[in-house]
């Protein structure tokens, strides 16, 4: 209970102690008033009934339920006082009743030296009798009063005073119920608000992750193919979904020996885990190639690196690693090692004997015995050397090409790819080869449903070389539109 001065005996009319609010008590009281959040709420039947009941029980013209605010007395219910919603917090009546623990009874206001100056007494209402019981919270704060007023002096019995106190207790119970309902509603609102905020956060996260994935994807790709004198290079990269970081990778770069290095590979699996392997593979291949230009040794280094990683034995990739260098015949010598990767195709003009529909000879290049990289400590890799003569091309790809669906249950396959390659003119350069291969994928009913990486090298024929201003390199990267997941 807050300590509060209590009125002395009211038995002597006109000699009531004039109470003034204690600052600390008043601050606590106002906090309680605000906690119940009742000020300026619309009329409520329960409070109206208490006021009407009080008026009937005491046989008085006016009865009210008031809440005492800092500077006003606000009527939550007012029986017999039409059109009045609040009055000033003048001392004498309600203003004084909330400063005491017990009921305040003033039989004749004109005989009370505080109440006699109250506007309700001096004004048109002419209140002569006033009795009020404070509405007291369980922790002792007086929020307001239940009071009865009359225009003529009167006295009430102790039982009637007790009744008034009971009515104030009923009002308090009602306010407790109201507060508990209010808390439930507020809790629900907070939950709803939290859910809405979580949804919004999820949307933002989704956008951030998509943006992160596409940024990561870009870092996993070479920004551009280098310009290699005497060679035309072209590539294509497609991810099945913008949300998936692809497991395909490739690069072309100069080696310290003066040769060029090249790789193209495919990590088994998708998503962030595959991306870490993709990254590891790219950097290991580039770094190893700085120490040796033996393609088999480079793949062995990658195998060791993947097996030394935390996912040892459970994350693999397939890859080609090749070195190429200009040779005396105007072409390039390519030494190519494989680690379980689908065959590359060495393309050259078909001899006339091959028939009118066969323009290109497509020779599968797959050194025998090259194993999956990162799966076995003693994996073996194999290499082969080929000569890329003027007018010839080499196509490397990931299995998203050969596993592209030509119908619901059929894939392009090695056969489909070979048929496509042999039917097109061999003399076209790498850029045209990539463009045509992308066209082949685009024409399929489902397009490329998986990630696809394509890399082509071609040595311009002497007549083309004269026409061309120099070696070209082209690259393009695509991703399926957002939401189109496979």
């Amino acid at each position: 209970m807050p300590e509060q001065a209590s009125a002395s005996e009211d038995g002597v009319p006109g000699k009531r102690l004039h109470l003034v609010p204690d600052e600390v008590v008043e601050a606590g009281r106002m906090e309680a008033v605000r906690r119940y959040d009742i000020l300026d709420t619309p009329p409520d039947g329960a409070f109206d009934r208490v006021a009407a009941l009080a008026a009937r029980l005491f046989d008085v013209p006016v009865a009210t339920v008031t809440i005492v605010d800092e500077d006003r007395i606000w009527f939550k219910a007012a029986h017999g006082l039409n059109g009045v919603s609040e009055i000033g917090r003048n001392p004498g009546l309600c203003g004084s009743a909330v400063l005491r623990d017990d009921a305040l009874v003033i039989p004749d206001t004109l005989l009370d030296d505080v109440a006699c100056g109250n506007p309700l007494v001096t004004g048109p209402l002419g209140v002569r009798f006033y009795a009020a019981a404070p509405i007291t919270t369980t922790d002792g704060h007086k929020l307001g009063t239940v009071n009865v007023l009359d225009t003529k002096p009167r006295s009430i019995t102790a039982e009637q005073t007790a009744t008034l106190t009971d009515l104030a207790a009923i009002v308090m119970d009602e306010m407790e119920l109201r507060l508990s309902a209010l808390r439930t509603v507020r809790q629900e609102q907070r939950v709803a608000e939290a859910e809405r905020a979580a949804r919004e956060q999820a949307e933002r996260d989704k956008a951030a992750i998509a943006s992160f994935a596409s940024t990561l994807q870009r870092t996993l790709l070479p920004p551009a193919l280098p310009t290699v004198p005497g060679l035309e290079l072209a590539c294509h990269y497609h991810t099945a979904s913008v949300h998936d970081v692809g497991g395909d990778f490739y690069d072309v770069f100069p080696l310290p020996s003066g040769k060029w290095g090249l790789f193209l590979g495919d990590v088994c699996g998708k998503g962030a885990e595959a991306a870490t392997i993709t990254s590891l593979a790219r950097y290991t291949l580039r770094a190893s190639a700085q120490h040796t230009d033996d393609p088999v040794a480079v793949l062995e280094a990658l195998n060791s690196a993947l097996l030394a990683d935390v996912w040892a034995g459970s994350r693999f990739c397939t890859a080609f690693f090749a070195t190429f260098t200009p040779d005396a015949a105007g072409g390039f010598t390519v030494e190519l090692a494989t680690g379980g990767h689908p065959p590359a195709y060495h393309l050259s003009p078909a001899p006339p004997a091959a028939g009118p529909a066969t323009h290109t000879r497509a020779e599968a290049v797959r050194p025998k015995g090259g194993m999956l990289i990162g799966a076995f400590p003693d994996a073996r890799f194999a290499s082969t050397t080929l000569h890329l003569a003027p007018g010839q091309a080499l196509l490397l790809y990931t299995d998203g090409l050969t596993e592209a669906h030509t119908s619901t249950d059929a894939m392009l396959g090695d056969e489909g790819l070979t048929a496509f390659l042999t039917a097109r003119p061999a003399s076209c350069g790498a850029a045209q080869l990539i463009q045509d291969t992308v066209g082949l994928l685009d024409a399929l009913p489902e397009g490329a449903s998986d990630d696809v990486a394509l890399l082509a090298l071609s040595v311009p024929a002497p007549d083309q070389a004269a026409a061309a201003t120099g070696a070209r390199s082209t690259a393009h990267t695509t991703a399926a539109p957002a939401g189109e997941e496979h």
Partner: protein
Amino acid sequence: MTDDIELTLTATPGPAAVATVTGEIDLHTAPGLRTRALELIDQGHRHLILDLSGVGFCDSAGLSALIGIWHGAQGAGGSLALAAVPDRLMRMLTLTGVDSLLPHYPSIADALSARQGAPDAA
């Protein structure tokens, strides 16, 4: 594709076990297959022969699972052999050179008779 894959122990000649795989092996089912096969190895069936005749589909996730099982068997001093390998998986095994480490037979009978000559055959 389905989330269901079954691995049923069908015969246990000595330390070897024949288990039949039924279902499709893809990204979703492969981890389950791997776990169950490794459990069999843990239970003492360190020479595992997988009957793949009931496998309708198998992609690179299936290949990963098989390599994981191979590592498990190797670690336990055992072995992994495959029987009735579906065409697509066989192409993958050949392409990736994994066929040189994973013995594969047309049928369970062939796999079992090949085991007769093994050092710790029953």
